């Protein structure tokens, strides 16, 4: 029977939020067959009452009850009332905690006839409610399985995954190596409500304290776990007709995108011939050099000559000229995107840069990027060329001055200056920039420099 009960409640375990007790009606009927364990129902205290709130339990689990004794105080739409037990026995299991709300007629507790049956009743209540120890036990496992699926937070500096503890990046200094959990009051409350074990959450608050958003992220991570755990994974897990809340990363992206609306941006496009670059790429590909690294390098070298394009506007009143040229490159990952950063791309040689890039991508996929590896970019590259996209424009990430959208390099018929027609590989780039600091002429000059570098790429390899 327990099995039957469990299966009927499986759907609700996917959501860790406490579901209302409405679903427990089915169970109540099946339980009534066993007369030894009775249920205490949410009574109808007035004709208009549809649900009641448990004000307080006057008895605790294991207490003996005599017939007519008050067990619980229920708050209805009219008043608080004591609810008496109709039978004698032991209060075996409380199914709705103090402060919880239950519809009229649903079970709020189980009453066992003898002390021996308390355990049995408890097991029943657990298998039917979400607050089961079994679920809690399963959870760490689920989280581990889930880890690859959990998106690494783009803006939140830490990754709320069980594994992340080993990163050691955000362990609270006062937590005495994880023995003590430092969590804010609301984080603790949320953890209780969402049934998240704080021991598995890494804090992103001050000094590594666990704050509410860490718990929320961890809670979101768990249901994600449920789908790959299924034997036959359904497509990429999108259920049509549903509303799926953002993950932490998607939330961060959303915030950043909205924030970007406060920046006055404009766009300048340029068509660059890539035959020379393609030839160079072919030549050094075997040495592990990637196109992304080449583009980043070319961009960085162009930025050296146009520091204003590498600047940003922090306060609306000044230019912030960045001391290093850090090229962030947007990478799509499951459920979002992240921008690993190639630091000092102008100074690092192309081979090292390529190795670094590979390393960053691997880390991004494993959700192990450290904050400085994804949020220190001064100029962003976004490349959709591999999908055959020939042109697009990008939204400027807040805190930077410019982003360049790179389209596919395609063979085109080109009329050249000397009056001849020929085939050339060309790609279109389109830069979005913050007009408070970067003006049209700046971008134009920068693009001209970039085009020169790409069209004569000998400097890229030193």
């Amino acid at each position: 029977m327990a099995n039957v009960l469990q299966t009927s409640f499986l759907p609700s375990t996917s959501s860790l939020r406490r579901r209302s007790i409405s679903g427990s009606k089915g169970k109540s009927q099946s339980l009534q067959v066993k007369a030894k364990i009775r249920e205490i129902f949410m009574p109808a205290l007035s004709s208009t009452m549809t649900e009641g709130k448990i004000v307080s339990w006057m008895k605790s689990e294991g207490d003996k009850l005599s017939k007519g004794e008050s067990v619980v105080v229920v708050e209805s739409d009219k008043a608080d009332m004591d609810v008496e037990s109709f039978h004698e026995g032991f209060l075996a299991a409380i199914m709705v905690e103090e402060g919880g709300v239950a519809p009229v007629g649903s079970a709020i507790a189980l009453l066992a006839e003898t002390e021996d049956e308390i355990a049995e009743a408890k097991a029943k209540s657990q298998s039917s409610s979400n607050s089961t120890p079994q679920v809690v036990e399963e959870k760490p496992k689920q989280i581990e399985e889930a880890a690859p699926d959990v998106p690494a937070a783009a803006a939140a500096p830490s990754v709320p995954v069980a594994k992340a503890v080993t990163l050691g990046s955000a362990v609270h200094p006062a937590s005495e190596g994880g023995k003590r959990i430092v969590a804010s009051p609301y984080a603790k409350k949320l953890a209780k409500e969402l049934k998240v074990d704080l021991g598995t959450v890494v804090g992103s608050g001050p000094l590594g304290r666990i704050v509410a958003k860490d718990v929320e992220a961890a809670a979101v991570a768990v249901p994600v776990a449920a789908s790959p755990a299924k034997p036959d994974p359904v497509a990429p897990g999108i259920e049509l007709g549903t509303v799926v809340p953002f993950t932490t990363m998607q939330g961060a992206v959303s915030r950043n995108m909205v924030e970007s609306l406060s920046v006055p941006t404009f766009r300048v496009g340029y068509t660059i011939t890539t035959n020379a670059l393609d030839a160079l790429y072919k030549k050094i590909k075997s040495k592990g050099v990637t196109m992304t690294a080449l583009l980043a390098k070319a961009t960085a070298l162009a930025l050296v000559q146009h520091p204003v394009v590498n600047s940003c506007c922090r306060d609306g009143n000044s230019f912030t000229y960045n001391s290093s040229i850090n090229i962030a490159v947007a990478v799509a990952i499951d459920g979002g995107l992240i921008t690993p950063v190639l630091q000092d791309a102008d100074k690092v040689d192309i081979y090292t840069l390529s190795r670094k890039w590979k390393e960053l991508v691997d880390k991004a996929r494993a959700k192990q990027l450290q904050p400085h590896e994804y949020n220190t970019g001064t100029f962003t590259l976004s490349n959709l060329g591999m999908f055959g996209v020939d042109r697009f424009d990008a939204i400027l990430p807040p805190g930077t001055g410019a982003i360049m959208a790179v389209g596919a390099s395609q063979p085109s018929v080109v009329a050249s200056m000397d009056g001849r027609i020929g085939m050339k590989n060309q790609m279109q780039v389109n830069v979005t920039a913050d007009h408070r600091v970067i003006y049209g002429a700046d971008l134009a000059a920068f693009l001209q420099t970039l085009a020169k570098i790409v069209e004569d790429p000998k400097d890229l390899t030193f």
Partner: protein
Amino acid sequence: MHSTLSFSRATTVPTTNYAFHSQSPINLRFCGLRREAFGISILTRSSSGRVRLSTRGRSKRISASTGNNGTPPKSFDYDLIIIGAGVGGHGAALHAVEKGLKTAIIEGDVVGGTCVNRGCVPSKALLAVSGRMRELQSEHHMKALGLQVSAAGYDRQGVAGHANNLASKIRSNLTNSMKALGVDILTGFGTIVGPQKVKYGKVGFTDNVVTAKDIIIATGSVPFVPKGIEVDGKTVITSDHALKLEFVPDWIAIVGSGYIGLEFSDVYTALGSEVTFIEALDQLMPGFDPEISKLAQRVLINPRKIDYHTGVFATKITPARDGKPVIIELTDAKTKEHKDTLEVDAALIATGRAPFTNGLGLENINVVTQRGFVPVDERMRVIDANGNLVPHLYCIGDANGKMMLAHAASAQGISVVEQVTGRDHVLNHLSVPAACFTHPEISMVGLTEPQAREKAVKEGFEISVAKTSFKANTKALAENEGEGLAKLIYRPDNGEILGVHIFGLHAADLIHEASNAIALGTRIQDIKFAVHAHPTLSEVLDELFKSAKVKAPASTSSPISEPVAA
């Protein structure tokens, strides 16, 4: 002429009352005071069935006029000098002028005292903001009313400015009201140099000495900071600092869950902070009626971003420095063992208030303070080290510790003025209401249920409890604020109101019907005929009185049943 009259009456006081007071000068519980407070009731209607302590034990005579500390002057500069221009001193001064006394008030700091400058007044400004923020942030609440509000935000500086402006406005109101009435405001710290003689002056200036027939000490209190706690005014603060709202921490620990702590938790959580309460007693809100505090916890604590540690002392609090957060050591209140360490962004010390009586020169007249409080009898007359009354010297408000509330101080001051102008008067502290301005508010007057039960057993009478819910009140439901409870503790035999406790919308304004009834000795069987406008929140109390089951019939000469006009 007046003086002779009041003097002879004032010098006879039952010894038993002394003993009682010296035992527990800071006892803020109302029950202890009740006996004497009612004892010398001036209300003839309420005298039946009450213990009249005053009528017995008039044993001890105090020869006060032969004081040892110098000779009192023959003629006086003033009839009354009040040391301290807080709400207590202000109330006393206004009443003294009304009674025709030549009055001066000495203030060493700013007019208005704690309440106006660092207490009730600026905190109400912050709470007005928090109440609105809370409402605007409650999507559920807004939706239920059919309102749509986009994200509510606040400007910290603006909020702090509102609190500051309010304080200065009320301060100038107080100053002007005293000046207009002809009260002399003497600037400087007042010190008693001998009987009926006070010197005052600013540091570095020559002192002035003034004489007065009667002197009232109304120097108030300062935040009490237990030892081991280092207040830096930035991350470890008292209410004095918190009211300036210099920053809103992400996580603030509040030490003490009384009125001050609760009100600040309301402010901070509405402004986005998370709060951890540290309470030495086993339950939160220890001063309140248990049923009210339980309900209040369900509404004010549990659903908010607040957690708590009870039964622990914060034995050591170190302010944030060198990149470290505020560190709080918690020690078990019973076992005295280290229990936990908290690391938070800020800590607010709300562990009560300590009397501000240093430098008052009490040694010049042989008065020894008890933990800083000036010992007084039930008429606020100061008691010296030998247990004798000090003639012409009174102490009101926080400095005597009887009931540390601004309006109690004022009431005590008025009572003293009544006495020195020839009418014996004893303030019934059980009729003094108290309120906590959380959202919703909490208010009370008289005894809590456990206190009433204890008294009932001791004195052999029965008590009953009546309750009404705000959920049944039309106005509360219209406001969509049905959460709340009013509770009446009374004697079913004679209809006497022992205590009323309210938790709900505008509870602080609703309590006065009950406190006035207690002050005037109105019984339930009479007050239940009073009419309340419909629909108003006051009907919560109307219903409360009507639901009480009193055996005694309504008085035949009830003032309410006799129309004055028409």
